[in-house]
């Protein structure tokens, strides 16, 4: 994008709607968005908070179809390494992140389940469990973001935020006998309830700050909440009445409904307890851009805003679902991404896939840069006080492998992480990393997660 940067100042309205803003409004004013309540309120001990009292956030960013291994991995390990090839866009952020090799999701391997590596790659990624192979009987497991949100979610207005920049879903069957829910969700509230991500940035924005013009939004949000309690009481009673008449399988559906009701009730309580988030004072994004890069950028911006205003501390984002066959014509690649990943060892095709991988990494790098340039309440950057995992549930998209997954952990974790390294962990469950992150988020009593064998020590 930088080849057009000279246009940014004068003639580039809302290319990236927040980036444009960053250029036109001085950042300090923007920094005042950050909540101050942390210092004022009685924090539960060490829950999603850094040593300096700032919120600690964690996010999981999913990219589809793995990455060409030879272009991904840096040649050197340790602190002295260079990011070339696919990871080159991250070179200037090198000291803010860790490249982790040797992390596996064994339950995404076929085992006796046969084909379906894209469905598995997608939904095993954050759950670490074996998926029930079925078009109907959907059973995964709770995902790590939801496990964390379950314990730290009451610190913020929204326990978690699920985002996506994927296309509309096609109809028909999904991957090899797996229900479509697996391939289109990374976040799972329970084994049977996926958390579908929001792909329209305008709706995300309105969910965070309310609908309408900047001046009206807070009032609109408050109005929406007023009177909600009596409605919740009513529907709860209706649900109880209904439940007694239902078969067991059906009760599960109603349970999902009731979980949602309870979550909204809790949010109402929090709304009374907490100060309202500051309105960013900018226009809401208009919707889903037809330009993919713009869509991705604005969606990342939504996550940044939610973190900055401390509306949530847990987020997931799907750049696209595993198996995505998007075409990248804007970087000279007319073929479909998934189609290309089965590259028949043709150098041309391999290179094209690597370029797509790199394009995705580039979008992530832009996001990290913005996190780094945004000061947090404690004077450090948002990136310092975050732990952002970037990865895919497939390692080599051509062969559908699920070991040595491409994983990046960005951010300082409020001083608890040791960034600026390329570490090969040999062969450890990815879930071990998740446990280490959960610990830092203040999650307690989580002995095991997915197929974990312990904590990943060297992070």
């Amino acid at each position, binding site marked *: 994008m930088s080849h057009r940067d000279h246009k940014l100042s004068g003639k580039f309205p809302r290319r990236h709607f927040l980036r444009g803003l960053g250029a036109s409004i001085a950042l300090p004013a923007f920094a005042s968005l950050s909540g101050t309540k942390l210092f004022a309120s009685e924090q539960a001990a060490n829950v999603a908070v850094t040593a300096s009292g700032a919120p600690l956030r964690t996010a999981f960013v999913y990219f589809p179809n793995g990455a060409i291994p030879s272009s991904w991995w840096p040649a050197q390990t340790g602190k002295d390494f260079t990011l070339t090839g696919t990871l080159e866009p991250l070179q200037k952020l090198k000291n803010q992140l860790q490249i982790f090799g040797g992390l596996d999701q064994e339950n995404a391997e076929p085992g006796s389940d046969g*084909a379906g*590596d894209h469905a598995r790659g997608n939904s095993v990624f954050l759950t670490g469990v074996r998926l029930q192979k079925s078009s109907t009987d959907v059973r995964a497991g709770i995902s790590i973001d939801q496990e964390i949100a379950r314990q730290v979610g009451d610190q913020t207005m929204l326990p978690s935020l699920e985002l996506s920049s994927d296309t509309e879903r096609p109809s028909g069957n999904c991957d090899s006998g797996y229900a479509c829910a697996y391939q289109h969700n990374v976040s799972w509230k329970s084994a049977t309830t996926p958390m579908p991500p929001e792909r329209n940035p305008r709706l995300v924005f309105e969910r965070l700050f309310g609908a309408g013009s900047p001046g009206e939004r807070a009032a609109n949000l408050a109005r929406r909440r007023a*009177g909600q309690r009596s409605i919740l009481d009513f529907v709860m009673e209706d649900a109880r009445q209904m439940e007694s008449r239902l078969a067991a399988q059906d009760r599960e559906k109603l349970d999902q409904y009731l979980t949602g009701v309870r979550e909204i009730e809790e949010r109402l309580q929090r709304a009374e307890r907490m100060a309202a988030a500051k309105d960013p004072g900018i226009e809401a994004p208009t919707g889903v851009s037809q330009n993919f890069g713009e869509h991705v950028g604005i969606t990342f911006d939504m996550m940044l805003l939610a973190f900055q205003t401390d509306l949530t501390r847990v987020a997931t984002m799907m750049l696209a679902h595993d198996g995505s066959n998007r075409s990248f014509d804007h970087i000279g690649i007319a073929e479909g991404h998934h189609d290309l990943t089965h590259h028949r060892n043709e150098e041309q095709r391999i290179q094209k896939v690597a370029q797509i991988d790199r394009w995705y990494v580039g979008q992530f790098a832009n996001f990290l840069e913005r996190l780094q340039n945004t000061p947090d309440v404690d004077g450090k950057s948002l990136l310092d006080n975050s732990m952002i995992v970037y990865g895919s549930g497939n390692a080599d998209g051509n062969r559908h492998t699920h070991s040595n997954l491409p994983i990046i952990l960005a951010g300082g974790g409020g001083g608890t992480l040791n960034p600026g390294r390329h570490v090969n962990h040999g062969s450890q469950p990815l879930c071990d990393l998740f446990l280490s992150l959960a610990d830092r988020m203040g999650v307690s009593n*989580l002995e095991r*997660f997915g197929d974990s064998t312990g904590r990943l020590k060297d992070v």
Partner: protein
Amino acid sequence: MTGLLSKFPWFFSCRLLYNQRSTQLDNHVGLMHPPRLAVSLIMLHSKYFTSLLLGQPSRRWLGPLPQVCAGLLLLTSILAPAFAAEENSLEQFRKNIEPILVEKCYDCHGNGMEEGSVAFDGFASQEELVENPQLWWRALRMVRAGMMPPVEMTPLTAEEKQTLETWIKRSAFHGDPNNPDPGHVTLRRLNRNEYRNTIRDLIGVEYDTQNDFPQDDSGHGFDNIGSVLTVSPLLLEKYLAAARTIIGQAVPLASKMTPEKKLTGIEFLPEGADSNNEANSNNEERGPRWLSYYEPGWVSHRVKVEHPGRYQLQVNLSADEKFVDDEFDYNKCRLNFSVDGMSKLSEEFSRQGHKPYQFSYDVDWQPGEHELIFELTPLTPDEKQIRSLTIRIKEVIVRGPFGDEHGVPVPNYAKFFPREVPENIEDRRVYAHERLEKFATRAYRRPVDDETVNRLVALAEVTSSHPGNTFEAGIAEAMTAILASPRFLFREEAALAPTADSTYPFLDDYSLAARLSYFLWSTMPDEELSRLAAEGRLRENLPAQFERMFNDPRSEQFIRHFVGQWLRARDIESVVINGSEVVQRDAAPDPAAQKMRKRFRALLMKPREELTEAERKEFAEVRRRFRRQRERFERFDLDGELRRAMRRETELVFETILREDRPLTELLESDYTFLNEKLAEHYGVAGVTGDEMRLVKLPADNPRGGILTQGTVLAVTSNPDRTSPVKRGLFVLDNILGTPPPPPPPNIPLLEDAGNEQQRQSFTVREALALHREAPLCSSCHNRMDPLGLALERFNALGMWRETDHGKPIDSAGALITGEEFTDIKELKRVLVANHRQEFYRCLTEKLLTYALGRGIEYHDTETVDAIAAQLEATDGRPSALLKGIVGSAAFQKSRPLQTAIESATIDSAASDASTTKTASAAHATSAGRP
């Protein structure tokens, strides 16, 4: 159609008839041994049941009843010997089935062999083997699809096949055709489409669920499957917000309102336009008015008011553009809005991507005319004009004069409040009770109990007691709660009391009404259906009601959503196909163009700051050439109109066959289709002019006609840059023949390594696939898939006819695994109709049953599907037989009773076992615990 649908007997009457006949039969076959009798009865019943169940809309369906009976008895006596008397399923298995398995299957599935993890002799006991309906269901499907035994092995004889099929259906499935298991449909929530339609019919509001709700999960190829439609916390939040928005839009909070007049953009006329003429000619289309950023111009409207007073003007605009990928438009303009010469708005606009704007102004007006003017001034005359930037003047709403004395009746007030609100508190309560009971009954699609209505009234009273709130506001609040209730959002069903003979009970009329309306209309039952249900007379009026519903325009929903998903016609609107690339690849490769692309990508990979001045220039040049090249082929891109035309083609062909009760095989092969000028041109069919889709009779040598050669199917099964014969072949197996191959093995060896890289560059897809098939691991499935897909190679990824691929001629000849040879797609269509009709009938029946029920097909549905498919064969594939077969089936009409407490406890514990970690299941239990 009218005639056809009107006089068939339906389920209820069928059963009566059956009972009478079976009594006669008991006498007739009284000499047979009981088990044999049972088998005979089953056989007889299954045929008989079906014919009756499906009805006799035409003489062609069946002969006179006595003949049929005779025929069926004959059939029974032929088949019955396969199962001698006094044998249970295990004995039958040992005697009739095991020998077949040993001879034809054990080479791979016995004696220590365990292909596909199946060993028939690998069970702890034969009882366990026999009591394994899922295994036998798989076996039945494999045998029927011709996948087992594999081609290289000795095939089953027709008799063996029949014996096996019969035993599986009767014994292994424990099927009781006299009382078929209707299965269980998991509690279904409304999907996005059903929600939108239901809200429209319930309350008259168009709510954009497509945009506002997260996407529905689908299973078995459809998005209305109860078990996979989940409710996430996000969705619940959306439901609550939607309920409030919808009620806010629909329900008036007072009986009077400030007068309001809407001036649409088109009513603002440019200088010199004859207001009378234009206003009249545009009476029909009261749309917006666009002003270009690039040209100065103004439009005006004179509004006349009668009363002096305070008015409010609300201006609704948006800044529109035509999207151009990766190129921006830096033009700006200034828009002025003035009232009676006073400027109210003067604002600068740049490119804003369809962003809406709203401005409000208060004015004090005297009676008479007032002039409103929009004036646009371009600010950047030298900028390149790329995106057709426009200001879209949607409307100006003139509100006023304000003040109670000017209030006018709210237009739809009477719809919600037919009487004046009583003064007295008790009367008010009665009125509230009446209004809310009525609304809740419709919204819940069944009667509501008094206790619920009392809760609603209490909720309404609390709300209206707040200062400033009206009685109406209270009712609106309670209605909001109704729309948020699970009883609205889920489709709860109830069954009639079980009958004395312990057969599966029928669904009650309310459930049946909802099943019908959501099946055919994707919406709630209308008044007539609800009334019949309330009177308990729906079932007896089913034929007439079905016919009425089918002929109602709302059944367009069924066509759109069923075809949209079965044939994936929906996806054509969003599938990414790179038109210029596809067309270029049909021709011989252009090395210069390929080199240029490669260079472009190489430059793109370099960090911008590292580019030399020369490279920068080169980059700009390559970009420019690219764009030029793309422009040359731009006309091949699938634009919105063409995509819509394709979708309509698929829908219209299906709809025509259905409405005119034409043979369903015309879906595979026909000499007509639906086209408009644009689509005809795309297909290379001459002589079609104009935008509207119409029936076009195709020339004899034209390859089109039938779904396989429609743009929808051809494009949605392609990659962005090229065709995919594998995906196309898979589509046919999956959706036409109903015999999907097993998924590919997880770790596909790199077969494509065969051949050197240079060869591969210029391979046609056929050549590449031929290499692929050389591997035995791949051949068994690809021999089935590839010929089907390769027969369609004459159609590129855009669905256009082509002569060459990579400049080489295309060979579309091939042979099916069943042996039939064909030279082109026309011959393949013939083969499919002539030899594979029955698979097609069964496949379509399964798809439609899935869609109608909202659940996947189970082994116990085999009998129903077979019966309907047989009926289709007997009627030359009449859609009426299919639809009536579905609606008349036990699966559609009956219900499996609630599980006992013990059974549900087992299921619950199984469910938590499935969450793999202890902690996760604990979390599940906590979050999903009951209140």
